């Protein structure tokens, strides 16, 4: 295998290293040794990859010149360029929480009983002015800082949906229906709290598999802060790429005609827009405008679109799986989806 510089990575260094879990696999002793053995020199590989891509840019451009591929790439790049600033914002905030805020702060700020901490954390989501890409790393940092998972999850779900920027965008997008803003706020907060309580009742800690985070021992605060930023951006960013590719594929492939067939049926239309919200993976700051243009659907169906989208979509699922582990995401995502659909259908019936 390619060159590997010996550096300080003798057997002693390996046993010293805290066992780390990548999002994908747990590394146990023998596996780990084998991994070390066939570990490649990644800076070299990265250089080779980039050089090869530059050398073959002609054929690559040619292969990507079909209209479908171009529109796929445009949407993919657009989702990345739009989401990366918010991801970076969230990562900076989560690194600051992890390094500078002592765990005792959260113990004092949140009520001791989880059942009470959930609504408080859910309402606190209103102050994080970002979209869903920012809330995933922040919620991860909260759990690592000792906040009860139920409260952190309520925050994770409510923050992207009820912050002032998103509610203002909703008001602008639905000038004729101001009650839409209220309905979105109420339904989103209800779902977030209900999921928090549900997790408190049924959730098991072994489903959660938080990445070990960066071990900050023996580092100054500055080093720990930037180490956390570097790790989280490359980690969550990788999952963001997975989500962006999925969203671009579905946007290019799913024909818009299907929506027309679903719009006439009251139950089907709610389900169709809920699924569409998951597939499109729109930024929660923009989804209200798309919902406003789906005029053939009822207001309740469009409310479902606005409640489901910021809580669970392809991009978020990939990022949640990366931050909290796959076992968690596989249980949490369907439950969130079902609850969000039911609650928004009920809220829509009452308020709209």
């Amino acid at each position: 295998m390619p060159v590997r510089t010996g550096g300080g990575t003798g057997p002693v260094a390996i046993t010293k290293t805290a066992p780390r879990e990548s999002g994908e696999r747990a590394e146990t002793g023998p596996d780990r040794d084998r991994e070390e053995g066939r570990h490649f020199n990644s800076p070299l590989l990265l250089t080779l990859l980039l050089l090869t891509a530059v050398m073959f840019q002609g054929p690559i451009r040619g292969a990507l010149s079909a209209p479908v591929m171009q529109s796929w790439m445009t949407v993919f790049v657009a989702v990345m360029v739009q989401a990366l600033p918010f991801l970076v914002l969230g990562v900076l905030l989560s690194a600051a929480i992890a390094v500078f805020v002592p765990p005792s702060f959260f113990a004092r700020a949140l009520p001791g009983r989880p059942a009470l901490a959930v609504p408080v954390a859910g309402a606190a989501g209103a102050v994080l002015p970002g979209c869903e890409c920012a809330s995933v790393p922040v919620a991860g940092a909260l759990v690592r800082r000792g906040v009860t998972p139920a409260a952190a999850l309520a925050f994770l779900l409510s923050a992207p949906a009820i912050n002032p920027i998103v509610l203002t965008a909703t008001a602008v997008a639905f000038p004729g229906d101001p009650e839409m803003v209220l309905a979105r706020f109420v339904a989103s907060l209800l779902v977030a709290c209900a999921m928090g309580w549900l997790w408190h009742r049924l959730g098991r800690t072994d489903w959660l598999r938080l990445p070990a985070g960066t071990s900050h021992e023996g580092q100054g605060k500055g080093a720990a802060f930037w180490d956390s930023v570097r790790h989280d951006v490359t980690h969550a960013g990788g999952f963001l790429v997975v989500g962006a590719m999925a969203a671009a594929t579905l946007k290019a492939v799913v024909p818009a005609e299907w929506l027309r067939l679903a719009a006439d049926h009251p139950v089907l239309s709610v389900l169709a827009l809920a699924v569409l919200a998951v597939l499109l993976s729109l930024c929660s700051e923009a989804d209200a405008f798309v919902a406003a243009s789906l005029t053939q659907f009822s207001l309740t169906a469009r409310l479902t679109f606005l409640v489901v989208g910021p809580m669970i979509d392809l991009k978020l699922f990939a990022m949640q799986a990366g931050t909290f582990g796959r076992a968690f995401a596989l249980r949490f995502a369907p439950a969130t989806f079902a609850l969000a659909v039911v609650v928004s259908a009920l809220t829509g019936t009452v308020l709209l």
Partner: protein
Amino acid sequence: MNRLAQTALLFLLGATLLHAATTDLYLRYVKSGLRPLVLLAGVVLIATAAATLWYDRRRGRPAVHHHEPRVSWLLTLPVLALILVAPPALGSYSAAHTGTALTKPFGFPDLPDRGPLRLGVADYAGRAVYDDGRSLRGRQLKITGFVTLDRAGTPYLVRMGLNCCAADAQPVKIALTGEVPPVLSPDTWLEVTGRYTPRRTKDPVNDGPIPYLEVTGSRPVATPHDPYDETWNT
């Protein structure tokens, strides 16, 4: 992917974002209002790369080796896509597959009284459909957009509207009639001169209303500085 490769990748990603935001490249993908955020993200990413190197150097030995998640390798894709390919703004392919997103405007501000009127695609369509063309009758109109042909070959003049990023871009369409140029290739940007006509049609994709424009002349123009229309419903 180890620390050093991650650092290099963060630097590249940051530099790519700076490149996109300092040129007009970013306008193909996101709304212009996001520019400060994109610049800031680029600066933070480069700062992260620099800080990682600096702390490693100060410590005097490479940091303890960690296995870093393999999913990080995927971050090379947006870098390559932006630097090598730089895909164009959404054009006729998306426009033909998405229904017109024309919604009723909040109001119809007065137009200048004399001379040929320059209107946006969405402005014309909104006035034609929801105001019965009251302010447009008898006026010479100039509208800029790109050409899209539907399956039957009907030509439309289209402008994509944007709220946040290209993933939520939606077209507004005007059907062309009258002296339409005989050969039209999709994605060509045209400045069309014409008159209001009450004729309407429905978008085959979503049954949305599409007004017609009676064309009297047209000339090809360069792609506008910002290919998307960000004025509507903001």
